[in-house]
């Protein structure tokens, strides 16, 4: 019988939530790495018991943890993230040049084909790859070496590479996103990159349609249609039908087009989910109502999903990597909040229930559907 494993990264440790396919009763293990910030935990698609976790604190820096038994036990692996060559500078908040400095890993993306190959998205923005299970890391420096690199600027959360999407039909194609540089694509396994931001419009930068400089919050793809991408930008929900070559806005009737998380239904590639958040400095749901919005038309037409979610006095945030879907017949949708709740829906968002509600602030949520 199938089961589900939810991997939760929080401000104070990692948690592993498991359930059978009914998704009614959950076992919770953790905190793993208690007291440390766990920006992301993700499993290998080809070996679901192989997990990688990004563990860090301001005191002791960055660690990468690896599990070979689905999160029951962990071992630290390599944590040397050295920028290739002379790091150079990017722009600081005030526009002055600022040297590239490694701070942490925001996102880990295991290969679709090899459990020992994993990508790491870093702050200050760079992409690293390990081909030995995380023991050693090498920067794919063609990205940071893109001619626009010196003009990249940090977003409020830092200059982070937070999204890595591997194309299942083109092994050499990969998409990444950086706050606040924008989205980039490689078609040659990371050697060269091109900005894919045409159609984005950001009123808060000097040139609203610039090639780079956009605060992309997250991107999602359905693996059956890798040329179709959905983006939650700082403002605007966007869609591309040509692998990012151009984008169009699909915010439609959302109550606010600001937000962080976005994801796609496991079986319906035109069904997408966002959590609108009140911009710009408040960063909580509009009117104190926690609502997931679902579009079954690939955007523009959205319906509020509220059953089981707090509809008053709710002032949590849902961060960019804190939403995921499972692949069971009735698609499960999960998201975590900065208030420590992880909500789940076993019916594609129609009904929600908190499967755990008093964790530390949730930074990331990933889901594994196990045979």
């Amino acid at each position, binding site marked *: 019988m199938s089961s589900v494993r939810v991997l939760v990264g929080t401000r104070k440790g990692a948690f592993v939530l498991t359930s059978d396919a009914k998704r009614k009763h959950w076992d919770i293990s953790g905190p793993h790495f208690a007291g440390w910030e766990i920006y992301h935990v993700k499993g290998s698609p080809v070996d679901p018991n192989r997990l990688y976790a990004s563990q860090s604190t301001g*005191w002791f820096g960055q660690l990468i943890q690896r599990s070979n038994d689905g999160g029951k036990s962990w071992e*630290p692996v390599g*944590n040397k*993230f050295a920028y290739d060559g002379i790091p150079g500078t990017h722009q600081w908040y005030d526009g002055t040049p600022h040297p590239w400095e490694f701070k942490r890993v925001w996102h880990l993306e295991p290969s679709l084909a090899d459990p020992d190959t994993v990508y790491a998205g870093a702050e200050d923005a760079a992409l690293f790859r390990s081909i030995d299970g995380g023991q050693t890391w090498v920067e794919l420096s063609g990205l940071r070496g893109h001619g626009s690199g010196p003009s990249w600027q940090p977003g409020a959360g830092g200059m982070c590479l937070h999204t890595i999407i591997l194309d299942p039909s083109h092994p050499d194609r990969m998409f990444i996103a950086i706050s606040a540089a924008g989205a980039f694509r490689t078609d040659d396994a990371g050697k060269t990159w091109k900005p894919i931001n045409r159609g984005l419009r950001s009123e808060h930068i000097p040139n609203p349609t610039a090639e780079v400089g956009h605060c992309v919050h997250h991107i999602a793809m359905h693996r059956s249609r890798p040329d179709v991408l959905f983006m939650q930008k700082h403002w605007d929900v966007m869609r591309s039908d040509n692998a990012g070559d151009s984008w169009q806005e699909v915010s439609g009737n959302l109550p606010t087009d600001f937000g962080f998380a976005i994801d796609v239904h496991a079986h319906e590639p035109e069904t997408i989910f966002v959590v609108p958040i009140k911009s710009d400095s408040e960063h909580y749901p509009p009117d104190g109502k926690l609502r997931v919005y679902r579009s079954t038309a690939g955007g523009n037409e959205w319906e509020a999903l509220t059953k089981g979610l707090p509809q008053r006095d709710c002032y949590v945030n849902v961060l960019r990597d804190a939403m995921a879907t499972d692949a069971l017949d009735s698609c499960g949708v999960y998201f975590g909040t900065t208030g420590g709740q992880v909500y789940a829906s076993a019916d594609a968002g129609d009904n929600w229930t908190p499967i755990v509600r008093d964790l530390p602030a949730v930074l990331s949520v990933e889901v594994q559907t196990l045979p």
Partner: protein
Amino acid sequence: MITVVLPSHLRTLAHVSGDVQLEVGGQATQRSILDALEARYPMLRGTIRDQVTQERRPFLRFFACEEDVTHEPPDAPLPDAVASGAEPFFILGAIAGG
């Protein structure tokens, strides 16, 4: 043998429950102690010193014989009492944060 007192998070990471006893080759200095510590507990690499720059992490300080030696040169000899094991070498994390 030199005694090193680690912050609690690093004791957990290194799977040790108390102070650490280390054989340090040559003169006892910050660098030689940290080199020996990382050789014996590889999981601590990068947690006290940056792996690339080898600079001390800014929220950590070093104490010996009730003196703050954080800003002493890394190759400066530590007091004899530390070298002999009579006094520990403390690695302290800042009491800060939430």
